[in-house]
Structures are given as C-alpha cells and as structure tokens.
C-alpha cells in the first residue's frame, strides 16, 4: 500500500473516532453558532458608533473571519492535540510499527478535521451567513475562492506541523499552541481590519498584509462580501502559493528530523 492509501485509512479511522464522540461535535457546533451571534452583534454595534470610511459592513467583515477560522482553527487545534490524545490512548506505537509516521498521523488528523469542519461549516455556518446576506457569491468567483481556501489550508498544515514539532520536544504545549493560534487570528485580521494598524503604527498594515494568511483573508473578504476581484490577484496568489510551499516544506523537514531525534531519545511513542 502506498503512502496515500495509508493516509486515507488513517483519515477514515479519525473520522470514525470523531463520530463516536458526539458530544464534542455538539460543542464544536455550539461554539461556532455563539461566535456568529457574538460577532454579528459586535459588528453591528461598532458600525453604528464609529468607522465611517470603511468599505464593508463590519458585521460582514467579522463573519467572513469566523467562516475562515471555523475551517482552519478546529483543524489546527485537533492536529496540535493529536499526539497528546494518541499518546494518552497508547496508540502511537501501533501506528509507528505499521508505517504511519508522526507526520502522516498529523497530516491525516488535519485532513479529517478539515472534512469534519467543512461539514459543520456547510451545514450550520454557510446557510446562516447566506441567509443574513453576508455572503453573496457570484458563481464565477467560486474557483478563486476555493483556490484561496486551498492555499490557506496548505499553509495551515505546515503551521500545525511546526507547532506539533514543538509538542514532540517540549510536550503538552497546549497553552502555547492556543496563544500561537490567537496570534495568527489577530495577524490575519480576524478581530479588526489590518488597515487599522496604520492608525497607531503607520506603514505596519502593508507589511502585515504580505503575510500569506492575512492576504488570503483580505482577498476572500473582497470576493465574498463585495464580489470583487482584487486587481493584483494573480501576483497575490503566486506569493501566497510560495509562502504555503515554503511553510509546508519547512514543516516536513523539521518534523522528519524531530521524529528521528525523538526515536533516539526514546520518547516517540509517548511523544
């Protein structure tokens, strides 16, 4: 069996396990719905009191962020926690001797969590956002939207692997991983428009906007809310692709070295 066959089997097994923990799925859905409610109200209140020269409705702006991070936040969390959970259940040894490396295990976890969150997002979030008019998708824009989501997904696999490699060395980095995710969300413009940084730090916004994930969210807002294609989108996609490839390449190299080190230290099965 080739690598992709093993990856597929591991993804299916993860989804089977996720389905057995139904309460966790209910919590995930509840969490997202609460996010939507909170950000809708926040956006609406802020919009009535301040920002006048802002192109989007702030509630729409925030809800696209919710949609974006609904797809990647849970997958990141699940992936970073995967080693800890597998170790607690004592399953890593069996996976290793059956040719499922730590990298494969984590990538499979990211895949299966993506399937899980896409399903939740498509059932619970997309219809809500569609119904309240946040997302008005022109069908011709869908290939671009999917491309941007795909590149963000690749980038986030790399990020998740890199953070998990810290997990292999230092163990139980749950709080650090949460902090890192929080920083990523801030940098991506989840909580406020990145352009607002210029109010306090002139010129900083342009630099932050070059970060692949921030660029993706920025372009997705243009596409999803305004139905507009950014004039430099080809160049932007090229830069984002480069960032995603560098990120995942670096993550795979780091992770393979960490796996070897960990096998030498004798900590791999307990990670």
């Amino acid at each position, binding site marked *: 069996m080739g690598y992709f066959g093993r990856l597929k089997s591991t993804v299916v097994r993860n989804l089977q396990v996720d389905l057995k923990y139904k309460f966790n799925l209910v919590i995930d859905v509840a969490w997202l719905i609460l996010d939507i409610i909170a950000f809708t109200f926040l956006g609406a209140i802020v919009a009535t009191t301040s920002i006048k020269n802002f192109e989007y409705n702030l509630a729409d702006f925030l809800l696209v962020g919710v949609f974006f991070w609904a797809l990647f936040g849970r997958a990141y969390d699940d992936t970073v926690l995967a080693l800890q959970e597998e170790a607690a*259940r004592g399953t890593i040894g069996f996976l290793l*001797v059956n040719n499922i490396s730590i990298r494969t295990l984590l990538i499979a976890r990211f895949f299966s969590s993506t399937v899980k969150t896409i399903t939740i997002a498509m059932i619970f979030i997309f219809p809500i956002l569609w119904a309240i008019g946040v997302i008005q998708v022109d069908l011709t824009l869908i290939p671009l939207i999917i491309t941007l989501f795909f590149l963000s997904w690749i980038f986030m696999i790399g990020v998740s692997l890199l953070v998990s490699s810290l997990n292999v060395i230092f163990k139980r980095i749950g709080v650090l991983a949460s902090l890192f995710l929080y920083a990523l969300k801030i940098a991506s413009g989840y909580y406020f428009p990145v352009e607002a940084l210029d109010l306090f730090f002139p010129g900083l916004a342009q630099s932050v906007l070059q970060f692949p994930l921030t660029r993706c969210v920025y372009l997705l807002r243009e596409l999803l809310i305004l139905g507009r294609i950014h004039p430099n989108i080809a160049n932007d996609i090229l830069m984002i692709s480069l960032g995603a490839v560098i990120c995942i390449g670096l993550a795979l190299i780091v992770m393979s070295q960490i796996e070897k080190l960990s096998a*030498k230290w004798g900590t791999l099965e307990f990670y």
Partner: protein
Amino acid sequence: MRNSLLNGAHWNSIEGENIMREIVIEVKDVMKQFPTGAFLHKKIQVLDEITFELEEGENLAIVGPNGSGKTTLLKILATIYLPDKGSVKIYDHDIFKDISKVRDMISFVSPALSFQKKLTLRETLKFFSGIQDSNIEDIYPFLEEIGLDQLMDERLEGFSEGQKAMTRLAIGMLKHPKILLLDEVTATLDVRRKEEVIDYIDKLDAKLDLTLGLIDHDPMVVDRLCHKILLLRRGGTILRFANVSDLFHEIPYRYDVKVYPRKPLKTKVLDSFGFPYEKLGDFVRFFTQSKKEVDEIHDKLFEKLEAEEIIEFSTSGLSLEDMYFFFLAKET
C-alpha cells in the same frame, strides 16, 4: 562459515553442507542510552555492545532481569527506537536508511500498544488491514479459533485484558510479517488461552517460516517456540547468546525441590539424599535432572514429613531466572 552477499541479501553458508540461510536480523555493536533530567543532559545506559545475527526461520528469546534492556532491544528491532551507536539490519535493510521497508516486514505486539477503544473490533481490524494492505478475512481462522469472531461489532473498550491481548496478536498477524516481535504477549492470558496462542504461533511459524523475536518469562513458551536465547545482564550487555538446547544442557539440573525443615537439617542428612543441594536461609534446594529423580526425592521427603522433620516441600521446573542466575554465577 562464510558470509556473502547474494541478490542484495546477506547469507550464511555452511561449508560442505550446501545449506544457505539468509541472515534476517543483523545487530552490530548496538548501544542505547536514554537522556534524562530537565535538560536531557544526563544519560542512562540501557544497551551496550549488543551484537548477534539471526538466520531465516530462527526464533530468538530475549531473557534478562528488569533493567537489562530487553524491551528496548525489541523496540529497536521494531524501529520504534533508533540506536545511538551501531547498526541494525533487517533482511539487509538498514533501519536508519530503509525504515519504511523494514516496517513493512515486521510486526511488533506488546501490551504497551493500544488502540482506539471507541472503535469496534471490525473497524479496528479494517483500519489495520487498510494501512497494511492486507485482507481482513485472512485473520478470521485465528479469530474463530479464539472466539473473537463473535465480538466483531463490539467496541474494544468492553474487552477483557485477555481479549485485548488476542486483538493485538490478531493485528500483528494480519500483516503477514516476515518477522514477528512479541513482548510478553502471553503474560495476561490464562493457561488455556496461552496454550491456544502458542499453538497458533507455532503453526503459523511452521507454515510461513516466520522469524520470531520474543520476550517471555515462561520457559515453556521459550522452549516450544525458540531456537536461540539472548541472555542480557542488568545494564544491557550480553551474558550469553546460544542455542536453547545447548544452554539447557549446560545447566546440570531441570527441577528443583524446595524443602522447609522444622529445624536445620544436618549435612549428613542432606548428603544422604544423594542429590546436589544448596542451603538458603530457612530452606534447602535439591537439584535433579529428571522426573524420575524428583519421584525418588519425593519418596524420601514424604518419610521426613511423616516423621515431622520437615514442614513442607515444593517442586518446580527450571525457570528462565534460574538459567540467568546460573550463567551469571558461572561467569563470576
């Protein structure tokens, strides 16, 4: 004996006998230390200067006291750990360079390995057959033989320790490995189950010409399944590596009879039994070569029991611990 390379594999040929056997496991000067301490700056020596070879179809028992590195050695062969020094080759594939190929050829079964307990037996076997590219039906005869076929749709969290041990074994066999590494797989099984498992492994070994590497404290298991024994000292160095039969023959007894006297027996009385013995605290151990000699000693002890000179006595077969301590004593 000479070594040669043929078709990329490593072989031993015996001069004049025209027998060629492939070297399956080749371990050379393996050293393993585990780092400890907050900054991993201290090292604990677990294995040192481990060198041995195993030919195709040969089965190895790894024996030694706690802290001798038995499980670490088995885990190195299973590629879970990598050695700090030395080399390990499985069918001429270096575990550093060809880890994936090596993993395709071996199965490692240990009570330390567990599975997702929320999944059913069927889902679990399907997952492992998926990643091993094997057929789940291949393992049905084994499952039927041990009665696990009735539990295919039960979650593993409801399984007893014995059933979990059998499930681990089923997963290990599902792969059709060339090398099966077993870490105390019979430890949690009752006598009947243990017998069934050993029988099955024995049959499988005969059918597939497996190479086994196992850790087990039961001499019956070692005697039935293994050709070679690797005796490890505490600290992880080799005390002996030899054929099982040769080692058993070197030990001058097979059974020992432990006798608890009411008051210390005089040397003259002990000599009158006509068997070698040793005094240890409040009891005496007699050593015998055969069951006939055991019966002979029992007759004499029953007389002493009736005369109320002794409190009780018990007889046991040669244990692997006995073997270990015998060779350790011989060495020192």
